[in-house]
């Protein structure tokens, strides 16, 4: 059987855990269609990323380094992956459904004229053919799709697959000689949202706020609650549009998909697009002063209250509990 390639995500040398769920998905796929799972790391000075990946149960890691890969660009990534697919005959390529995978994987699909299923949440087999599940309509439908052609391309929803655990053996890291010509594309700059908190998509607890929080200053309240859990902070589109929260805090259909153990929705009405990003959380708590707010339909524990009264009370109660 043809082998499977996972394209590793990192932020200029900082490994991102999105890759670990993608490795798990690749292994599920290998279990169904056969083949071994390799990983590809592209970058500059990213040996440590390759070593990390090598410890998570892949057969081998391909390491392509060069000045041209120092900054991620879809125009340089896609042709290199296409070249490796052609040389080594990979039958499937997977990448995380993050803004990284969503950017270069469709370009790869265009270069190879190969089918891409986006944001997949599951694989199955029926007879000899592979079936792939992916959400559509803001998560209100799960589509079962079939891919025709080769290689099969997938971007993987991180919350749908557990991260690949550390393996006993370490896979070999093999340098590959690759280069790219970004042509008319240049990297200009990056504005990082600085945060000491865990990433939204990895956090055990997420505290999100919406228009009901009313001002950027009031996010302090959100932070205080989040601090008690080492939680990540999220936001509705309304809060991001208002400029109260950075864009990459947006949870929802067109933002980040999260599924923490505990999700707090504070002053969020629960629009379809927001629910699409958080309704797979294990436990959902909603605090909203409008008892008709749709968020209560998905909440395990709904509290109809003014958040400016309820959240400080909640913080106080939790602190009491902690010190008890």
């Amino acid at each position: 059987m043809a082998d499977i390639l996972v394209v590793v995500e990192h932020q200029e040398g900082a490994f991102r855990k999105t890759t670990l769920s993608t490795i798990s998905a690749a292994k599920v796929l290998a279990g169904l269609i056969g083949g071994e799972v390799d990983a590809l790391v592209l970058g500059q000075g990213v040996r440590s990323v390759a070593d990390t990946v090598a410890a998570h149960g892949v057969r081998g890691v391909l390491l392509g380094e060069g000045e041209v890969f120092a900054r991620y660009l879809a125009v340089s990534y896609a042709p290199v992956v296409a070249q490796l697919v052609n040389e080594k005959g990979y039958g499937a390529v997977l990448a995380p459904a993050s803004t990284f995978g969503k950017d270069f994987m469709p370009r790869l699909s265009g270069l190879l004229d190969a089918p891409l299923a986006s944001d997949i949440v599951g694989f199955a087999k029926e007879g000899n053919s592979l079936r792939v599940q992916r959400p559509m309509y803001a998560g209100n439908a799960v589509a079962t799709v079939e891919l025709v052609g080769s290689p099969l391309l997938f971007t993987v929803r991180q919350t749908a697959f557990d991260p690949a655990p550390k393996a006993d053996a370490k896979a070999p890291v093999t340098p590959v000689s690759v280069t790219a010509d970004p042509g008319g594309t240049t990297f200009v700059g990056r504005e990082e949202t600085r945060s000491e908190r865990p990433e939204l998509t990895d956090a055990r607890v997420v505290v999100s706020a919406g228009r009901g929080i009313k001002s950027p200053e009031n996010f302090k309240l959100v932070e205080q609650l989040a601090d008690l859990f080492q939680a990540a902070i999220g936001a509705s589109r309304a809060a991001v549009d208002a400029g109260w929260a950075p864009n990459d805090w947006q949870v929802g259909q067109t933002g980040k998909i999260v599924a923490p153990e505990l999700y707090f929705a504070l002053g969020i009405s629960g629009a379809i697009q927001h629910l699409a990003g958080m309704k797979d959380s294990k436990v959902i708590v909603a605090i909203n002063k409008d008892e008709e707010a749709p968020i209560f339909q998905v909440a395990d524990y709904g509290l109809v209250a003014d958040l400016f009264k309820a959240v400080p009370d909640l913080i106080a109660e939790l602190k009491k509990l902690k010190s008890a």
Partner: protein
Amino acid sequence: MKILVAIKPVPNPDERVKIRKDGSGVVLDNIKMVINPFCEIAVEEALRIREKRGGEVVILTIGPKESEQQVRTALAMGADRAILVETTKELDSLGVAKLMAKAVEQEKPDFVIMGKQAVDDDNNQVGQILAAILSQPQATFGSKIEFSEDGKKANVTREVDGGLETIGVTLPAVITTDLRLNEPRYASLPGIMKAKKKEMKVIPADSLGVDASLKVRVLFLAPPKERAGGRKVADVAELVDKLKNEAKVL
């Protein structure tokens, strides 16, 4: 500048769609079709660029004749003319992008702008595939677009995980839009009147010589797992008690 804007009609995103009993699709009766919100943002951006730098805004859509309605809305917002590549066949993202590429080759715009994702199928693919087929630079998830004085280059700020990133692309290129790029205008009444007279060229998809056979086949749809939500607590004390003793997450 000549700007080509690709738009897709989608069911009104504020309504919750129902899946047909046989799973073959969603029930679209009584649901209003609208321009995909991200495409609306693309139309708005194109209009603003034209207002600043002059030029022409051309709308492109691939699909059945009924798409004309949403195309007219884009014309009413202020676009100059439109192209409808007509087909009733099912298409996947590759098929859509291949047909688009033909239209782009005919029109030779300075750049193509479109939504990052259609909010019905949620693929987030077409712009990037098109850029690959045309061998052009791509700038996805744009929240700010700035052109060099000579209009040959654009700096696009992109909404990415971890923050914002800016890349420079030489034109022609494909740009896709994110939510924070702008707030689209409404079509004015005079705009709607004018739109009726604007040119809309209909090109039969079959005439373009493209093999758009399906490579991603949607077999059926099923509803997602329902959550058993809806329980209320009386006060903060009960909430904390439930989180500790029932959900055991504290």
